[in-house]
């Protein structure tokens, strides 16, 4: 049997629960001893800080919003490997949160450390920003606080709820970031290689044309590659979708090995869980209404409407009953208080809404 075959056999026995306890322990010990990703490490401090915040946010939203009354839990006994330090072994119960749900969650609020746009520097410092910044402002802010070498430093800009941010990158590319977005980018682009930025949330890009150095937006494992164009990217972790809409020029969207070439007026909608991509037309005015300060809904499902506004107002939305396919149309200014927006929506949909702190309950 070849080495590879032997390894496959061992690993599939491991996956299928066919190894003894001793064998499982040994194999896990070997896996830890010989990690696959040997040179893994943080790319830079911004990478680390973004990850740290991301886990913390998820942690806080899922731990504070758990309903204590929902009791039906499946108990799974889990043998825990013995603790090296104390020589003892304990068995504990691992309870999953598969609870009977009395309410239906439609959207989830996030926790923002700050209600201002912040810049996270490569050494992890957080600096508050106003409504817009050019790379010169950013560099200035960083080097007021820090005297480190600016070359190749990755920094991140994080936009809280009800805020937008307008940014000019080192190469002259303009980026508009919507509420909840995080953009990671280098303070200075490498003059020889591609220009790469990382996006979570929604952003609109006007890329400064430079054929020699393609511009890439990495979003939830997908990639948008351009040389100089205008396009909008929505990368929503909670929806596990990435939508890329092209207004002008040419972009190539790729997920895994497949690439899709877009023409102006087309957008790709990628489901990153199912690994499916749909190419469809879009309405530019509607799509970019967020930049102008409006929500435009054109026969949109109520659940999608609520997810969109939840990102802006940072609210958790729950419904008493599953919301049927109610469609909503209309234009709403996004600078109105949440209560006004819900009052309008109530008139349109015939549903009642109740605000409890950052949670909105749909009384249906």
């Amino acid at each position, binding site marked *: 049997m070849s080495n*590879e075959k032997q390894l496959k056999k061992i690993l599939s026995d491991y996956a299928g629960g066919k190894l003894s306890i001793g064998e499982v322990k040994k194999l896990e010990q070997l896996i830890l001893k010989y990690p696959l990703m040997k040179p893994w490490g943080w790319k830079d401090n911004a990478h680390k800080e973004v990850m740290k915040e991301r886990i913390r946010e998820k942690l806080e939203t899922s731990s504070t919003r758990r309903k204590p009354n929902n009791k039906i839990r499946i108990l799974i006994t889990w043998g825990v490997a013995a603790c090296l330090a104390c020589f003892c072994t304990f068995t504990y119960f691992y309870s999953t949160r598969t609870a009977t749900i009395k309410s239906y969650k439609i959207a989830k609020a996030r926790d923002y450390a700050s209600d201002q746009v912040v810049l996270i520097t490569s050494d992890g410092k957080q600096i508050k920003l106003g409504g817009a910044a050019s790379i010169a402002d950013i560099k200035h802010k960083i080097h007021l606080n820090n005297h480190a070498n600016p070359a190749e430093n990755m920094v991140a800009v994080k936009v809280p709820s009800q805020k937008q941010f307008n940014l000019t990158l080192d190469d002259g590319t303009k980026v508009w970031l919507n509420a909840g977005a995080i953009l990671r980018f280098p303070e200075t682009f490498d003059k020889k290689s591609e220009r790469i930025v990382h996006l979570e949330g929604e952003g609109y890009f006007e890329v400064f044309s430079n054929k020699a150095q393609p511009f890439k937006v990495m979003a939830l494992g997908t990639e948008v590659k351009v040389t100089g164009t205008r396009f909008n990217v929505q990368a929503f972790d909670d929806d596990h979708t990435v939508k890329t809409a092209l207004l002008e020029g040419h972009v190539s969207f790729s997920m895994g090995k497949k690439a899709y070439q877009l023409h102006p007026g087309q957008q790709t909608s990628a489901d990153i869980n199912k690994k499916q991509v749909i190419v469809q037309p879009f309405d530019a005015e509607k799509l970019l209404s967020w930049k102008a300060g409006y929500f435009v809904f054109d026969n949109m499902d109520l659940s999608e409407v609520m997810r969109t506004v939840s990102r802006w107002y940072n609210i958790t939305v729950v419904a008493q009953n599953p919301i049927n396919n109610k469609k909503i149309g209309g234009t709403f200014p996004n600078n109105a208080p949440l209560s006004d927006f819900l009052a309008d929506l109530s008139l349109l949909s015939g549903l009642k809404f109740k605000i409890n702190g950052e949670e909105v309950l749909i009384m249906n």
Partner: protein
Amino acid sequence: MPRPSTHYKESADKIAVWDISALYEEHWEDLFKQTMRILLDEDEAADVVQQTFLDLLEMKEKISGIKSIKSFLFIMSRNIAFKKLRRNLANTKYLNFYAGHYKEESAILEEWIVFKELNQMLQIEIDKLPAKMKEVFILSRNFDLSYIEIAQRLSISDKTVKKQISNAIKILRLKVDKRYQPLLLALVLTDILF
């Protein structure tokens, strides 16, 4: 000597009061790095770290008197990560990818083969041990029970259990082929006792 932790204090009823965010602050990065030695994907690793802290929150009333919250966190996240790995490996693509990679790392297979050979040899010798000693040894080895658990199960003292196991190891060391002895010692210590 255990390092004093500032993040939990033992109250009178032995239920530790934890400051989760301080624990997160202190340990998330090492947990994340440990997980990246098991899984390939940063998103998955992030899920593992998140799940570890959620489980801790969920369980904090049920567990008391834990000696080291740090090792507890590391063991939990390790277990969650390996559980994910097992699920991933059920997928042929993932399995092929892993096997393909480990093929380059010949040490992992070599160590595995030595371990299996020794195990077989040991099994033969274990079968020849005196009945009571064999029972104690198997409970420890195959059922992953602690001395105290074995003692309770067999209604004997934990000192006896300890003695029986150390005697069993002495006997096994003598019996097994001399050339394997240094390896055996390591194997016995790391894989059987702990």
